[in-house]
């Protein structure tokens, strides 16, 4: 039938457009960043410099900033998201469970610019006064806390990212948790385990889902742009402590791009940063996906 064939063909073309888009994105990143890699080679990613007048660029501080902020985010978000997942699937009755899941879904769909605005004007001053200053005053001898904090810095960005990624991580964990066969739970209780011991056993059972959720959340944290750009401080230097102002790759791109056209190598340098971000994110997400798949096979 002719219409059927035409219909199938058009479905096919719409479907492969996703491949074309992703391929063109990769090609455009490589093609635009190519000059900076040709000129500087590896030193572009293992040095710290941002001097457009001298056309001198090295993005290591921003790479470190990305790693530091997302490490803080994961460290805070992991216990929170495991608790949230367990709490909503184990400890509360059905009606509250739905409310809790809806709240979590709403958190995931809030625009990041709203998180950023709240982070800048509400969270940052609170953290500064009640968390960072006390920590710095009393524990300032620890190198990680040694910088005298201003409200916007790497730590604030990490905390804000943690708040943003909790719903993602917890929904992955929640899904795995609710898919655990019921007989396992029954068996555990019949052995005389108490509720906490059962929960601990179940969490052990879905270990790979917890890892998968963590990696996917890590990928989100590394790529998040505007919320971070609003609270990270935006200064290109090697961070001396968690309380130092800094950059992440994505916030570097967001705040430097408007004046990039004026310089010969700045656009390539920013696309080079984006390319590094793409590679790191892809690697982390592929690890996350493969763990997720292992989980399915395991079951």
């Amino acid at each position, binding site marked *: 039938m002719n*219409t*059927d064939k035409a*219909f199938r063909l*058009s*479905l096919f073309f*719409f*479907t*492969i*457009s*996703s*491949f074309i*888009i*992703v391929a063109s*994105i990769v090609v*455009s*990143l490589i093609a635009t960043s190519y000059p900076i890699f040709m000129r500087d080679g590896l030193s572009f990613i293992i040095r710290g410099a941002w001097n457009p007048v001298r056309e001198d660029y090295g993005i290591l501080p921003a790479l470190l900033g990305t790693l530091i902020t997302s490490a803080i985010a994961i460290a805070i978000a992991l*216990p*929170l998201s495991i*608790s*949230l997942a*367990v*709490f909503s699937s184990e*400890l509360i009755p059905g009606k509250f469970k739905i409310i*809790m899941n*809806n*709240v979590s879904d*709403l*958190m995931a*769909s*809030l*625009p*990041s*610019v*709203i*998180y*950023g*605005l*709240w982070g*800048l*004007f*509400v969270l940052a001053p609170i953290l500064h006064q009640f968390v960072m200053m006390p920590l710095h005053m009393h524990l300032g001898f620890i190198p990680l806390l040694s910088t005298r904090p201003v409200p916007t810095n790497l730590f604030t960005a990490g905390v804000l990212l943690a*708040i943003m990624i*909790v719903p993602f991580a917890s929904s992955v964990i929640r899904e795995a948790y609710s898919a655990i066969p019921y007989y396992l739970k029954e068996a555990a209780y019949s052995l005389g385990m*108490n*509720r*906490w011991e059962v929960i601990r056993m179940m969490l052990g059972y879905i270990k790979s889902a917890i890892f998968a959720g963590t990696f996917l959340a890590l990928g*989100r944290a*590394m*790529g*998040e*742009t505007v919320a971070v750009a*609003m609270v990270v401080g935006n200064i290109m230097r090697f961070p001396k402590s968690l309380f130092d102002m800094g950059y992440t790759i994505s916030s570097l*791109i*967001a705040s430097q*791009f408007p004046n990039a056209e004026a310089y010969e190598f700045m656009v390539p340098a*920013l*696309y080079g940063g*984006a390319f590094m971000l*793409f590679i790191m994110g*892809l690697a982390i997400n592929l690890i996350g996906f493969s763990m997720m798949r292992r989980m399915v096979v395991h079951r």
Partner: protein
Amino acid sequence: MSFRKIKERIMLGLIAILALLSAVPIFAIIFSVYFEGMKYVSLSFLIDLPPPPIGDEVGGIGPALAGSLILIALALAIGGTIGFFTGLFLSEFSHTKLAQQTQMILQIMVEFPTIIVGLFAYAVLVLPLKRFNALAGAFALAIVIIPYIALNVKEAYKSISFTLKEAAFSLGLSAPTAYLRVLLGAAKSGVLTALLIGMAKAAGETAPLLFTILGSTFTYFAGLDQPIHAIPLLIYNFALSPYERWHQVAWGASAVLLTIILTIFLVSRMIIRGART
């Protein structure tokens, strides 16, 4: 009380506290946005031009609101079409290798940093036209929402019972009629939800707009090849400006944006619940 019992109490209490703690921010954010923002929102706030940075003029977010509506519509037209047919393909040809690979690509696209999409749109639509333009922004937003729409449309068509599909085809209908007329009715609520998710995403995204639309403050709409403004971009720019007056406009704009997002969220929940019962 035995040691085991004490440990159980402590751990369960800790889980409850941490879980509730992780839900605190969303309420704090909604409260702050409405508390700070609602003071400035009025009908004229939705229509007027932004105020100068200094002075008492209240001003508004008219151009940004108009721009956002245009960008959302365009992004849905482009991304919705591609996403819908991709989702239909994924559901109906799920056994093919292409479907499995597409699924993978879409999952990668969901996790893609959206700022990279913005850079891509800049390279292919801003540089050649030598001007920031609305089309580049809509294109970037469309790329961002394609995977969300496709994956949800796929689920919608997957959920149609096989007997209904069989019946549609046994009537001798052509594939387009069967999928787009008869079966679309059965998948309606799922497809609508998919479009709403894409719409919410397009309304809130900022990073894809940073290098594409520029944000023209004083015109509502001048053409697809001209700069345009958007609410998220206005919030970002004004929040980072040094002017108190603009911070207030940013809060007001956030209240408007949050209302849009909450409305879409509630409507999609209602559709899902309606479909279940």
